């Protein structure tokens, strides 16, 4: 296990290094000079050159890259071209919104989808089993922003129970307000996420229910519950965990639409603004932090899968293959 951990960790670091090179090069390939964002329209060539010099975009690319790496090594994500504020603290304050939003929605989605998916498979011939499958079929077809609009119209505008959007200016120092403003976004993400998760849980459960080992266990006198607990759960959870990892990672930044519907100051909206303003350090910083998160989540998912399923132990990564 220790040897595997070392290899997997090395793999993670190499991926991160590769990803940062790709990130850096891709961003420099974008057209549009960030110096334009700093200077007023009709600025003289000298002013533009001065702006370029100030942000360092006149230096050769390798030098810019090593400079960025040096900053990263000392835990500095750089300084925004536009606001001249350091990126790191800004990312941290955005994470204060995005991380609770994503994790709560994720947990809620799992709490909904695992039992619902199991029932949808186990009771698939009953009306409520079919209903659950139907609801999830409907759920994956609903655009997340539209669900958000409807929830706002019903629970915020009509009923007036919850705020229609925004986040308190002082953030978590007003915990009650902060929680209230996150309720609808969390529910929105959780509903959409659980709709697709139900399908995965259902199909994993169907595989287990039709398996020979379950039939054998039952034939040897094990009760259904015991057979499911000892054999079914492990086997069904491996592919589901693989999907969970991907869902969690993509929700972290994919929350940008929900953040937009509810006007939340999250990581996704920070990135959107950064891209629109050609603010390299912001885009680079946000993408670096989120790539790191994606890799760490993949690492965790692989580890959990290996602990659950010994058959995967010969492999470096992944479960659903």
């Amino acid at each position, binding site marked *: 296990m220790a040897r595997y951990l070392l290899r997997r960790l090395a793999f993670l670091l190499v991926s991160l290094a*590769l990803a940062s090179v790709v990130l850096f090069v891709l961003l420099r390939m974008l057209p549009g000079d960030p110096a334009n964002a700093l200077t007023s329209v009709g600025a003289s060539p000298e002013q533009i050159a001065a702006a370029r010099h100030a942000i360092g975009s006149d230096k050769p690319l390798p030098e810019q890259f090593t400079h960025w790496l040096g900053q990263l090594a000392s835990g500095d994500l750089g300084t925004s071209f536009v606001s001249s504020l350091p990126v790191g603290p800004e990312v941290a304050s955005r994470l204060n919104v995005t991380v609770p939003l994503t994790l709560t929605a994720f947990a809620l989605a799992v709490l909904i989808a695992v039992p619902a998916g199991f029932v949808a498979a186990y009771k698939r011939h009953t009306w409520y089993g079919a209903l659950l499958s139907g609801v999830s079929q*409907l759920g994956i*077809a609903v655009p997340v*922003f*539209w669900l958000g609009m409807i929830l706002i119209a019903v629970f915020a*505008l009509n009923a007036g129970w919850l705020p229609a959007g925004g986040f308190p200016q002082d953030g978590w120092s007003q915990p009650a307000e902060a929680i209230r403003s996150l309720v609808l976004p969390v529910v929105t993400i959780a509903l959409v996420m659980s709709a697709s998760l139900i399908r995965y849980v259902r199909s994993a459960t169907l595989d287990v229910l039709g398996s020979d080992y379950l039939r054998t266990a039952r034939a040897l006198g094990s009760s259904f519950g015991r057979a499911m607990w000892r054999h079914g759960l492990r086997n069904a959870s491996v592919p589901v965990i693989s999907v969970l990892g991907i869902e969690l990672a993509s929700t972290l*930044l*994919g929350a940008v639409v929900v953040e*937009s*519907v509810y006007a939340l100051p999250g990581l996704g909206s920070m990135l959107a603004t950064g891209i629109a303003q050609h603010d390299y350090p912001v885009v680079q910083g946000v993408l670096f932090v989120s790539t790191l998160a994606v890799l760490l989540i993949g690492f965790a998912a692989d580890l959990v899968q290996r602990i659950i399923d010994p058959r995967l132990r010969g492999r470096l990564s992944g479960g659903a293959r």
Partner: protein
Amino acid sequence: MTQADVLSPVRPKKTSPGTRRNRRSATLVVGCVLAGLVALLALVSLFWLPYPTDDTSGGRLAGPGGGHLLGTDKLGRDLFTQVMTGSRIAVEAGLGSVLIAATIGVTLGVLAAFAQGWLDDTVSAFLDILIAFPTLLLAMLIVAARSATLGSAVLAIGLAQSAVVARLVRILAKRVLAHDYITAARTSGTSWSRTVAGHVLPNIWPTLVVNLALQFGLAVLAEAGLSYLGLGAPPPNASWGRMLQEAQATFTTAPVGALAPGILLVLLVIGVNLIADGLRDTLDPATRRRRA
């Protein structure tokens, strides 16, 4: 028995026993009806629209009726006209993205399937990272580089989906390549390209087609999301996403504009997903056996 019957290949009788087959075809039929409804709207919009797209004569935020089937939006434009153009954009977005995703994804996936050892690990890990990278962000980068057009959005969605398709094709093709008859074919001198064309693609296409149908639905949703954020087709092209975004502020006073595009969107995506389910049950012998 006519000549044509003799010449046509043997087919299983349509009256084969059991209700399951009927239920399968029911899924397919319902899916075709739902998606076909939207496709029909899109097709008609190419030749005829109730009003010109820039006609603002209808009075603002009028309710349904009075020459406007669904009423008008906040600029006085006919909502039904916009919904029709929107369906055309949605179908175009779905088709375009899936075409890009299929071309790149199948090529990359087949190539990756031949990779071994650490190269294989690297490729699959790279695909995993790409998949976890949200479509929307890729789209934002592409839109920033080009401009907010339907083409940029479709390109971004197609590229993001090609990673998903590539991963699936890689797994499926690897499974095929592990068979003894492939080794036999290869040792007897069958070329690389003939192996792919003769053995790999015919074996993976049922699963692939089902997945591409699902990707179509996802592409339609992604395009709507992008245009909701203002990163899709620019005005006056009424994408459903942008219509919804514009109607958000008047949801309680003029709900039709905030509901109609969403409902059509859901119908189209459900329809395509049902087609995918129906195709899976008809095309894939493995699930047919398991469910029977």
